[in-house]
């Protein structure tokens, strides 16, 4: 039972354009959501998070949107840069233990110059 799904295994975007990565979850108990970024041969690094009491959180070029009724979240990167090329993992958890997360299987983003 995959509780967190990223249905697009890959996404290719032109530099300067917007990248939109999507994530769906099934467990209503999740109340905290995170996005991690992973480069090859490195561990995931935290990018941005959102609590279920919000529907949007912004940090520079990165914005995460949460639609609780649809159990859907998305990560927007604008403008996209070649250095953003990486695998992006969506993760869901409870606010009491943000380190223990259920991860999606990742979306590989390629930003072309």
């Amino acid at each position, binding site marked *: 039972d995959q509780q967190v799904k990223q249905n697009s295994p890959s996404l290719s975007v032109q530099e300067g354009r917007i990248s939109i990565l999507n994530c769906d979850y099934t467990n209503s108990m999740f109340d905290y959501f995170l996005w991690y970024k992973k480069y090859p041969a490195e561990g*995931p690094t935290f990018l941005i998070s959102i609590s279920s009491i919000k529907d949007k959180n912004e940090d520079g070029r990165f914005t995460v949107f949460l639609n609780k009724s649809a159990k859907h979240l998305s990560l927007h990167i604008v403008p996209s840069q070649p250095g953003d090329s990486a695998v992006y993992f969506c993760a869901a958890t409870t606010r009491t233990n943000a380190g223990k997360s259920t991860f999606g299987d990742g979306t590989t983003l390629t930003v072309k110059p």
Partner: protein
Amino acid sequence: DTAVSQTPKYLVTQMGNDKSIKCEQNLGHDTMYWYKQDSKKFLKIMFSYNNKELIINETVPNRFSPKSPDKAHLNLHINSLELGDSAVYFCASSQVGGRSNTEAFFGQGTRLTVV
């Protein structure tokens, strides 16, 4: 200064062997984890330790035994290695107790190949 470091980075071994992966964090976090990333790229939690005590064991075969000598270390010992154990293993830490409740900080991963 590496926040979460794990060794070795690569490990190639034969079926049936016993091996260990070491992990150390210098962030002062109270909770450490082992995650496994399989060939399908899923990252799944295996164990979680809080202040040296096991709090999560996610249906992992008992050939896998985590050991936490102190809050800053969480080692993973694997007995009788099988082909299906081949994966990338990530150590991570976070702060759960107290005022802070952080996301996970990951090590660089250990790619285990069982031949």
